[in-house]
C-alpha cells in the first residue's frame, strides 16, 4: 500500500516540476540544448515519465514551428548597392578605394547625363543642316509641286462617278443593275 503522504508529496513535486518546465520552455523555447545545464537532465527525465510534461514540450515545439515564420526579410542586391553608393557619396570619409559596382554606376550616370545634354544640341544642328539642304537643293519647291499634283488627282477622283467603273457589256445600262 502506498503511503498517502508520499502520493501527496509526489503530486506537489510534479506540480512544481511542471511549473518549472513551463517557465523554462517560455524563456528558452523547446530546444533542450538551450535550457540551463543544471536543469536539463531532470526536466528531460520528467518529460519522459509524465505525459503532462511531454504535452508541454509538444506545445513548445509547435509554437517554435509557428515562430519560424516571423518575416525576416532578405537584403536585396539593390539595397546593398545603395548602401555602398551612399557611403562613397557620404563625404564623411574620403573613399580612396571605390568598388567596381559603384564606379560602373557612376560612369553610367555620367554617360546618361552627357547624352541628355548632347541630344537637344544635336537635334538642333541636324534640323539646321536639313533646312540648309532643302534651301540649296530646291527640293522644297519640288515637294510643293508634288503636293499640288496629288491635290489635283484628288479633285479628279471626286469628279469620277462610280458608274464609270462599271462593266460596259450591257451598254452601261444603269437600270439593269438595280
Amino acid at each position: 500500500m502506498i503511503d498517502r503522504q508520499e502520493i501527496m508529496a509526489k503530486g506537489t513535486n510534479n506540480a512544481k516540476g511542471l511549473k518549472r518546465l513551463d517557465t523554462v520552455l517560455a524563456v528558452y523555447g523547446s530546444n533542450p540544448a538551450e535550457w540551463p545545464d543544471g536543469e536539463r537532465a531532470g526536466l528531460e527525465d520528467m518529460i519522459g515519465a509524465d505525459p503532462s510534461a511531454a504535452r508541454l514540450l509538444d506545445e513548445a515545439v509547435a509554437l517554435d514551428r509557428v515562430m519560424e515564420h516571423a518575416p525576416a526579410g532578405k537584403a536585396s542586391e539593390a539595397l546593398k548597392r545603395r548602401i555602398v553608393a551612399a557611403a562613397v557619396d557620404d563625404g564623411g570619409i574620403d573613399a580612396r578605394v571605390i568598388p567596381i559596382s559603384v564606379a560602373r554606376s557612376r560612369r553610367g550616370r555620367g554617360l546618361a547625363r552627357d547624352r541628355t545634354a548632347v541630344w537637344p544640341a544635336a537635334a538642333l544642328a541636324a534640323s539646321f543642316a536639313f533646312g540648309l539642304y532643302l534651301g540649296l537643293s530646291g527640293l522644297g519647291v519640288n515637294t510643293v509641286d508634288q503636293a499640288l499634283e496629288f491635290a489635283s488627282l484628288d479633285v479628279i477622283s471626286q469628279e469620277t462617278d462610280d458608274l464609270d467603273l462599271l462593266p460596259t457589256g450591257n451598254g452601261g445600262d444603269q437600270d439593269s443593275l438595280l
Partner: protein
Amino acid sequence: MSRIAAGDARAFEELVETRTDRVLAVARRMLGNDAEAEDVAQEALLRLWRQAEKWDGGRAQISTWLYRVAVNLCIDRLRGRREDSTPDVPDSPIPAGQQHTLEEDDLRKFMDDALQSLPERQRLALVLFHFEDLSMAAVAEMMEISVDAVESLLARGRRTLKQQLQPAWQEFLPDRND
C-alpha cells in the same frame, strides 16, 4: 575595420555583403515594415562607415555594435509612431473563420501581427534571443537590464504569443492518440 577606416569602400562593400541580412532581420521584426527596415539597415551601416576612423576594436564587436545601433534606430522609429498615432493592435491575429489549414503566407502574416502586438521590450528580447540567437548575457547587456529581467521579458512575450497563436500552433501538435 582598419581598411574601412582608411577609406577602402571595397572593404565596406564586403561588410555590407555579410552583415546587412542580420541587421535587416532585426529591424524587420522590430518594425514590421520592409521599407522602414531597409532604411534602418542602411542608416546603421552608414553610421559604421562614418565612425570607422574612431572605431575602438577592443570595446565592441562589429555585430554587437550594429545590433545596438539598429535597435536604437528602431526604438526611435517606434516612439515616433506612438507620437503620430495609436497603433491598431489586433486582439487575436487569427480571424475566427481562418483558423484551419493555415498556408505559409497566412502563418507569416499572423506571426508578424502577433510579434508586432507585443510590448516593445518583450519583442526586442525575443528578437535578439530567440531569432538572433544572442546569449542571455548579450541581450541583457544590449538592453542594459539584468539577466533576470530578460528572462522575465522572454517568458511574458512567449506566453502572449502562445496564447495569440494557439489556433496556428495547434495544427503542429503531434497526434498522441496512436
